[in-house]
């Protein structure tokens, strides 16, 4: 509702505080802990270290988007088959609205599956990208467009 013209539901620049604080448990996946200055958000994210190596203290831009189409309104207002078409855009020959990913280095697709409220002001959203978890904590005012149960794209660049 803040940015009606775009599919991007959340956008900010984060600084990594730490990586794998609880010990390295997996070979190819690490968990990063980051904080953003703009919106004062906390983030934990599991990411593939082989594809997207990151260091501590590094900055990166992170965006969450409901569709990969540039501009234009929300894509998921359509009927069932509209959603289906949207799911097929990953295919090499897939038709559909794409383009947003070209601006980023690392893109994942997943689902918002849980909302959890701490105090009344601070909210945490949990998103799972095929088992890679992301938690985003901060004021609920910045997360109004993130809707429970919706598919979501994670876009990152250094």
């Amino acid at each position, binding site marked *: 509702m803040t940015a009606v013209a775009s599919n991007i539901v959340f956008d900010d620049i984060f600084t990594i505080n730490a990586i794998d604080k*609880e010990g390295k448990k997996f070979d190819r996946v690490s968990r990063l802990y980051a904080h953003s200055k703009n919106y004062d958000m906390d983030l934990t994210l599991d990411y593939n270290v082989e594809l997207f190596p990151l260091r501590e203290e590094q900055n990166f831009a992170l965006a969450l988007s409901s569709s990969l189409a540039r501009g234009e309104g929300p894509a998921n207002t359509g009927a069932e088959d509209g959603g289906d078409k949207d799911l097929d855009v*990953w295919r090499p020959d897939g038709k559909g609205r794409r383009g947003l990913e070209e601006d980023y280095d690392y893109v994942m697709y997943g689902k918002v599956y849980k909302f959890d409220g701490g105090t009344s002001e601070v909210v945490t959203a949990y998103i799972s990208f095929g088992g890679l978890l992301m938690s985003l904590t901060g004021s609920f005012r910045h997360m109004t467009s993130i809707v429970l*149960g919706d598919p979501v794209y994670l876009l990152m660049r250094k």
Partner: protein
Amino acid sequence: MYINSELPGVPSQPGQKPIRGFVQRLKGKQGRFRGNLSGKRVDFSGRTVISPDPNLRIDEVAVPERVSKILTYPERVTTHNIEMLKQAVRNGCDVHPGANFVARGDNKKFLKFGNRAAIADGLKYGDVVERHIIDGDIVLFNRQPSLHKLSIMCHRVKVRPWRSFRLNECVCGPYNADFDGDEMNLHVPQTEEARTEALELMSVKHNLVTPRNGEPVIAAIQDFITASYLLSRRDVFFDRRQFTQICCYFADANLQIDIPPPTIWKPVRLWTGKQIFNVLMRPNKKSKIFVNVESKCNKWEEAKAENYPSRMKLVNDMSPNDGWLVIVNSEVMCGVMDKAIVGSGKKKSIFGVMLRDYGPHEAAAAMGRLAKLCAPNFGFSLGINDVIPGPILSMKKDELVERAYADCQDLIALAKKGKLENKPGCNQEQTLEAMISSVLSKVREAVGNICMKELSRHNAPLIMATCGSKGSVINVSQMVACVGQQIIAGHRVPDGFQDRSLPHFPKKSKEPPSKGFVRNSFYSGLRATEFLFHAISGREGLVDTAVKTAETGYMQRRLMKALEDLTTQYDLSVRNSTGGVVQFTYGDDGLDPACLEGDAQPIEFQRAWSHAMAIGSRTGRGLLPFEIMEIVNVQFATRRFVETCPETYMETVRTFIWDNVAKKLGDMRQSRGMFEALEREGEWDEDTDLSMGASDSEKAIVDNKSKVTESQLLAFLNICWVKYAKARIEPGSTVGAVGAQSIGEPGTQMTLKTFHFAGVASMNVTLGVPRIKEIINAAKAISTPIISCRLVTCNSEPSARIVKGRLEKTLLGDIASVLEEAWAPEYTYVGIIIDTQAIMKLQLELTLDDIKWAIVAHKKLKIKQEAITMIPRKNRLRIYVDGQDKFYRLREFKRNLAAVVVKGVPTIARAIINIKDKDDHRGKKGDKELLVEGYGLQKCMITEGVIGEQTTSNHVIEVAQVLGIEAARRTIINEIQYTMKSHDMIIDPRHVMLLGDVMTYKGEVLGITRFGVAKMKDSVMMLASFEKTTDHLFDASAYGKNDSIAGVSESIIMGNPAARCGTSMPALYSVAPVLSKPRPLLFEESI
């Protein structure tokens, strides 16, 4: 001699073959009753070795072709099968889809010889062809010992080459089968009715859960679990080729598979391992399988709060080792697929959830897919490298062991000086043993933890231990680091030589190595002494299992005989075959334990709610709290709810919705500055804004957190109804047999653990098979009778001691400082000087008078009260003796007086003050209670300082005598449940209740023994087939008894279908036919 060749006193003639008398023919396992009447040899059965085949569906069994040519099914020729049967007849006996006989009426033709083509051409409708069994036929598959109903199940045939029966490994669980040479039996039902009944009642698919407690027993095992775990870990990625290849593995070629979008789009498209499981659960978009579950995995590491932002409320999902499973609409959000998720024994495993929500066929299909997926994919092997400890590990382990040795030395030194503080109820030696044992067991635990930490993530045994597929942390650390203390009969290794275990050690040594501590690992190799200790302990285990199988087998048989004829009737009461009511409603609520989803509850609300939230549509207006409650009430008023569910159930649902949904939503609204809307306002309609002008973002967050739409709510209520309707027990259910099996079968799995501390060291309670045996035998003398008493003042130690003094028996010898003889010309007496100091110290309430009467009351001594004089000033008692034999009397008194009980209850061995370690209905944690070892519940209850109402005993018979039959029933139930729980075995309370009722419904406590069963049952036939065959038969013939053939055993013996249970219960009732007057017999007059 002809009647009974085992007459006592008649010696058997050597050289002569002993005669088998009539009694011997009838008696025993091989006798007429048990060998030929209750169980018979049958046709159409086969037996061979079993082997695994993951490519079979779970309800299939591969039958070797040569077996399939012998087993036949008589199929009637119809329009539909005539071509197939003609071909079968042409093929004859030796070619597989053939036939062995053709029958028309009574005329049966063998197809080995003769003109088969002619017979085939002459085949007519109505003929019966005994054809070979073919794919899809229905057979029964069984493995001994058949301890529960899941030991014989119905499979579908798959005819395959070679010589073994093959089954999917998932089905090993209920049969308790492995492939080290096990053999199994196969039976072919010969009629359509038998086939249908088998398919509906005994099919593998309908037996995925055990009726013992409703947990799945057919599920992935061993390698399937390992493979699932490896595949679903967080760092498993596949490109499209690999992903589609794996998806192809798990399906048959006829299944449409839709590939989900990849998780990582850029820089390369990658799918994660968890997505494979999404596809496995829901292969294509048309599939309606939406699994929703949240559960703990086998090993769950909790995320530490300090590692995460402080304002974030940490949820279980963030577990660093991915140990918390969340599945939303068949999409795995997080968590690994390990024992707890794909294995047996958890109601919240994905198969358990699929079974409850989408029926057995879907669950079975998914399990089949998992088996096929796990079969060809991953190589997994274990080598010597996996058990070599790293330098850090060996160092740390040595350090730990050395420190433990030093600690033990210190303890031993302390004990030698007698400076060890005794534990309650223990002497110095026992205290030392207990402390050393605890030190040493801590070592093993610590070493195990180091192993888990230091070994590589790719270590095969470690992977197996973490995902629960095989072995445990202890097994890993035994191979890698340290074998640990060897226990024999619950203690450290005892002395086999004089004062020492082996001559390798100094005498009276109590050091860990000489008492059976093995510091080496299986990798480093055991020392000679260590090896011997390990062998001793290993042998003990073997002997124990051997003894136990015999014992539990007999127990199972008795239980079965006592409960076999109990069935639910159409009014849901449980009655025996003669119509005696055992329970008015089965299990007090008429629910089937096999269909219960929650913990002895028909539904697990939390999960059902999240499932309803996920499957219901989220679009549309969110309901206001009062609307939610209104919809609930409207639904509950509908006919289907009113007719099926009792008020109590609806009330629990209503409470759940109010607490977890409506109230929460209201609170949420209030905290965002909106109307709570818990009550309907007068002038409300669709358009009234109750948000009080809250901002859009606030509305969004309330929605995100707690929006409930009408469709979601209705979905939830529907689930509530369906679950309850499904969980009701069916009339005709053989609840008795199932209950007996549910209690008997776990007995075989009980491990060595026979003893257990009841809070205090040295206060042991018998557990395991011996204890179960005591309970169901209704034994008069049990090995550890314990009465636990709640105290009036439960927080003060001194008052507890006073009560203890009142209960515990005190002997005269304990409080008398001097027992003296006095001889004088005029008189002789025994003088007793009472030590008042001791009485004070023991806090006894005892006067000289009490002591006098105690002595008088002592039966053996026969002292008259006139003989005793008291001298209160000096605390003395004198017992004067006079008469002829006064010398001997005097000596006798002096000898026996010390053993006179002056205070307390003689039957009580001792009492111990126990401090509760957790809260329960009888008090809070930290409260003092009194544990009394021995008999005498009544005495304990009336003792001052004890709350009589909350005093319990574990002795069933005593409870029955003191408190009555209902209390005895309760005690039976509680004690069985307690014993089972301490072995980590969960049994539905309904089964135990039924057993308790059977043992008590006659008004006295009847054990499940030959005497008890004889009192419960009237049928001679049933008793004869149980025990003491001939005694019952002689009795019956002498008294001219008759048998109504109403029970299960009798029906089987007579060859009838089991009466009044299961499918033989429904019957047509018609007016009895009018019988004409019997024709007079020809020679009637002559009689």
